[in-house]
């Protein structure tokens, strides 16, 4: 009697294992198909010309496939949005985890979650129709659709990620550390800055990297708000064309399996590698500097 039962058990176990491998299989397929469609471009366009080329004129004759301005645009909007979202996200996390009363916390946490749930196209639309005219008036610039506006919108997309992950990290700092600090006469603020933040630093760094990874890969916001000019920007109020915007805007018109189509897939490869790098760094930090308690300080 025991035997069929055992077989059934191990069968189920194996099925579960196969299903659990679905994620990594999909990830592998994503890589495979991006490379499959993108790499043939490099038969005609050398890699360094593609990555470092300064001109992106995919439809002119002969076409120019240089994504350097697009890479710079992505880096600019990501860094600029991080400048806004890191302080905002981390400070909100500190407030929610350490200062807010239970009632405020119960009310504010869902608000942050709902902010994360807003569809990106709605945030992009908001940036287009509300923020852009506002910026145009306030700063007296030719167009409100520019790198600054995109960064601002992206910041509010990455704040929830940064905030909720940092909050988890801060919240899991053991109470005895806080109590020891307070007992030594430190104020609450000193305790936060000197004890709680250092103790949760690895969690907060992971949060920041994942937030930035979300910003660099976000598509609809930069497609609608960044302005779309494929040039290296000279000021934050210049319109730019980040990598995802270029892919999303041009894919529909690119002739099937032509050089333009290939170039957009190759752009996807570059974007994918960027986010992969961010995620591996975040994973590395999370594992190497794992927050286990008092011993880590």
């Amino acid at each position, binding site marked *: 009697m025991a035997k069929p*039962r055992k077989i*059934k*058990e191990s069968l189920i176990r194996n099925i*579960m*294992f196969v*299903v*659990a*491998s*679905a*994620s*990594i299989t*999909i*990830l592998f*397929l*994503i890589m495979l*198909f*991006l490379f*499959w469609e993108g790499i043939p471009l490099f038969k005609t366009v050398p890699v360094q010309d593609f990555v470092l080329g300064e001109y992106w004129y995919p439809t002119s004759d002969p076409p120019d496939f240089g994504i350097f301005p697009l890479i710079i645009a992505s880096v600019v909007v990501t860094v600029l949005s991080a400048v806004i979202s890191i*302080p905002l996200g981390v*400070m*909100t996390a*500190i*407030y929610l985890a350490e*200062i807010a009363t239970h009632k405020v916390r*119960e009310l*504010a946490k869902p*608000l*942050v979650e*709902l*902010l994360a*749930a*807003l*569809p*990106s*196209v*709605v*945030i992009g*639309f*908001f940036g*287009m129709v*509300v923020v852009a005219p506002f910026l145009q008036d306030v700063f007296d610039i030719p167009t409100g659709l520019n790198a600054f506006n995109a960064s601002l919108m992206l910041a509010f997309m990455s704040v929830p990620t940064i905030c909720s992950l940092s909050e988890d990290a801060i919240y899991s700092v053991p109470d005895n550390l806080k109590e020891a600090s307070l007992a030594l006469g430190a*104020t609450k603020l000193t305790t936060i800055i000197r004890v709680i933040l250092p103790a949760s630093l690895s969690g907060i760094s992971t949060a920041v990297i994942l937030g930035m*990874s*979300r910003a*660099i*890969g976000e*598509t*609809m916001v930069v497609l*609608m708000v960044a302005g779309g000019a494929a040039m290296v920007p000279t000021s934050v109020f210049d319109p730019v064309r980040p990598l*995802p915007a270029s892919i*999303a805007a041009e894919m529909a018109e690119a002739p099937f399996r032509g050089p333009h189509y290939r170039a957009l*897939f190759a752009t996807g490869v570059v*974007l*994918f590698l960027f*986010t*992969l790098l*961010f*995620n591996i760094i*975040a*994973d590395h930090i999370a594992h190497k500097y794992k927050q286990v308690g008092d011993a880590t300080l």
Partner: protein
Amino acid sequence: MIETDTIKSGTAENNKKFVFTTAEKTRKRRHFVESLFFSLFRLSALINASALIIIVYFMASRGWRAITWTFLTQPPMDSMTKGGILPCIVGTVCLSIGAIVIAFPIGVASAVYLNEYAKPGRTIRLIRLGINNLAGVPSVVFGLFGLAFFVIYLKMGVSILAGALTLGAMSLPVIIGASEEALKSVPDTYREASLGLGATKWQTIYRVVLPAALPSIMTGGILGISRAAGETAPIMFTAAVFFIPNLPTSVFDKIMALPYHIYVLATAGTEIEATRHLQYGTALILVALVLGMNLVAIIIRTKLRNKMKF
């Protein structure tokens, strides 16, 4: 000024006073700095909350007038400058339900494996790395993948099926995360009691652990649907088209979808300014749909947390 005086006079009593006043001053300064910082923290929380409220307010105040019975029940008319958004609503519902039907079983089974079967080690580390990285893949890259794999390689064409599969792949990490969280919150005593009664591992999971975790797993499912409903980039090349007045009849039909419709009207329509009210109206419907589902999930979760303190 008081300090300099007390130092000069030098008597014991005055020294005491000096210590006291300095301490008092330091205390006051610390208090001031502290409350300054705390206000800053509070302010940033307030900025986040108001960002959400402002966006929702703009969509609601400018969009509600567009929402009429015609708007909800008619297809777009006169090259999308009039009429409604019925095909978009239907399309979005089809896509997100399709995505969840695909992703939910896979996600829950993955979570069961990770939480109930797997032992710490290389394999599980690899699987987790896969999930984390999948969660970080940009939405437009999912779109490219869906185009290359589902639409072209598997010859599904631009269709509901291809879009739902792409969205399903994308919402998988969300569902795995929520289900794992749910499974973790089931106390080990439940498992031990069941195993102690002679149940096998699978019987324990199927009859004890999963039923106990089900409500919060459902919450994860709702969050997965709402994420799939709001995404634009993954369906741009796999499922959605500018305009198709008929409702879909098979999974191989092309469709319209709310997020893509907003994008099209706001950037590529023939009359961008004249259709503003339609854009706001569509955005409002999408926001209401997505936030509504999230609110339901949050409410269920809060109730569960209060009810079942294991």
